[in-house]
């Protein structure tokens, strides 16, 4: 069984890798990147002041497209340092990019952990309420999870500023300065929406489990409500949580972009946005840097879970 699982994962891995290559080099398919970059470099060197005579159209440049995919792969086999272009200079991509990556991943992982804790807490608190009284938290949940991340992040930031102006108390650093990084607030803000999603999925799963007969039996045996919730129902909902966790992770990744832009964090996503347009290979590399660790993690976890399920027979 392990062999087929491994083979399946390998096929999936290579297909997605090819997909990343295909997407990452797309700008070379649609634009005459080489000549455009030449013009841009001339503008940056102030050799060219008038660009009105330059005209270009959208093209389908398959040759350049394939060539660029090859050049992106090139540094893997040779030890050429990858460079990127910024305002007239060629700068080495690493370690700068890696530092930004680490920073963003710290934010992401910390807030995902916080989101997990928050989500589980919210679910258990809601489940402790009698069934009829759960409508209100559910309604609030629906409204909150419908709000776009940009709104939530902006509102939180502005509220902190407003509190600061009104009372002089700075709860958190709002934007990242030169030495002092806004650290705590971005993590909290980034955790908010994923926490709501975890809450949403767990609540559904908890309510399903609540209907099961083993809960009735436990209640009949005189176990406390809270104990049934925390120990028995929660244990059986972990599988559902894991199934949704990949989606939540990718969702948090999307929130990270807006967070970095609004809080002026010089992280991974802002780096891709600032430099990915002129250097499409950065997009490809960035995708791999997210894809490979998360793929390993999720495939590994799934393997462990599957073995656990098979070892234990049916999960209750």
């Amino acid at each position, binding site marked *: 069984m392990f062999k087929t699982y491994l083979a399946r994962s390998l*096929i*999936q891995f290579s*297909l*997605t*890798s*090819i*997909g*990343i290559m*295909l*997407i990452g080099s*797309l*700008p070379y398919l*649609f*634009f005459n*990147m080489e000549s*455009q970059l030449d*013009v*841009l470099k001339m503008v940056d060197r102030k050799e060219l002041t008038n*660009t*009105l005579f*330059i*005209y*270009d*159209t*959208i093209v389908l440049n398959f040759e350049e497209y394939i060539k660029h995919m090859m050049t992106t792969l090139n540094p893997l086999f040779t030890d050429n340092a990858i460079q990127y272009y910024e305002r007239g200079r060629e700068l080495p991509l690493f370690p700068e990019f890696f530092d930004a990556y680490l920073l963003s991943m710290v934010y992401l992982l910390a807030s995902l952990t916080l989101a997990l804790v928050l989500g589980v807490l919210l679910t258990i608190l809601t489940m402790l309420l009698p069934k009829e009284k759960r409508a209100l938290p559910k309604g609030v949940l*629906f*409204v909150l999870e*419908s*709000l*776009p991340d*940009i*709104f939530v992040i*902006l*509102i939180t930031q*502005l509220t902190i*500023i407003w509190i600061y102006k009104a009372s002089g108390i700075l709860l958190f650093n709002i934007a990242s300065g030169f030495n002092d990084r806004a650290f705590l607030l971005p993590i909290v803000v980034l955790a908010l929406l994923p926490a709501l999603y975890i809450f949403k999925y767990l609540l559904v799963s908890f309510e399903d489990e609540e*209907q099961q*007969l083993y809960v*009735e039996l436990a209640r009949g045996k005189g176990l406390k409500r809270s104990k049934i919730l925390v120990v028995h129902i929660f244990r059986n909902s972990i599988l559902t949580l894991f199934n949704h966790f990949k989606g939540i992770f*990718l969702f948090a*990744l*999307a929130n*990270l*972009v*807006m967070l970095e*832009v*609004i809080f002026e964090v010089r992280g991974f*996503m802002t780096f*891709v*946005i600032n430099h*990915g*347009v*002129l250097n*499409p290979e950065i*997009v490809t590399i*960035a*995708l791999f840097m*997210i894809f490979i660790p*998360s793929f390993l993690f999720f495939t590994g976890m799934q393997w462990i879970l599957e073995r656990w399920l098979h070892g234990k*027979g049916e999960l209750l």
Partner: protein
Amino acid sequence: MRKISLLHNKPLLGGGLFILLLLIGSILYGLFSDPQEPQKVLLDENNNAVELAPFSPSTKFPLGSDLDGNNFLLKILEGAKFTIGLSILVAFFRMVVSFVGGYILYLLPGTFRRLLDGLANALHYAPVTIFTYVLIAPVILSFSWSYDTSTKVIFPMLVLILISVPVLSLYVQNELHLIAEKEFIESAKVMGGSHFQIFRKHMAPFLYPKLFVVFIQQVGQVLIVFAHLGLLNVFIGGSDVRIMEYDLEGEATIEVFSMSNEWAGLIAQNFQYVSSFPWMVLAPVTAFALTILAVNSIVYGLTHMYTYRKRRKKSIESSTHSVIREDSFYMKS
């Protein structure tokens, strides 16, 4: 029966009315408003200057005003038709292309589906915003000098449409396969229906309601992407439409294409003032948030049709849910 349940469906009704009224109001405003010269100074009864533009939110300016003293609420109202209209347009074409794509995938052997599934998986590992930004920004920001205005409108739209086609096509194909397993398809085949006939007469009707829900969801998705791209300074219509250029004869070229007060554009223009005049960004972002909320409540209303239709039956259903079945018990080894 159906009509009544539709009226009882509050989320659907509320969300639908909100968007409809916003659109109608926006179009009417565009047709009948008479442009007034905005005032840069706010005066009280004694003609003393109270405040300079941009004005903070007050009863006269519920959402504040911009740098020239224009009422932000009216700006939002004027821009609504462009933003909502564009997102409906993009979502609609996403659905049309994906519908065709899904049908083609359905006809192709399963290997193609698995191949595309693996390849499209790559799209999950970064936010849509990043992909669209990297593809749109060259036209609008980085190399903006070399593309004409129509390219600056059409190309971003195409990118926004095509970026989600692979995933949506796979969804359509999956739904088609689920329907194809039903028994009545088998009988239609036995009756001698051709492939396309079966698709058109027996499968597609089952697909349309589902696709309609997905379409509404897509409108919400597109709105979010618009808001994100606005924050990144990219918005449809280009960021340089307001700059007047001079052609070779020295004559001013007047802006041909202008979508005034499109929400994403408002975010893009005003984000630099976010710390000093927060309402200038908050107003369009709130407009986005409310519209997305309305869209989501329509989706909720559509997917929960049954809870709003079978209200009377519900009490009977809930009393019979704990039936003890044979498979409820099993021996523990």
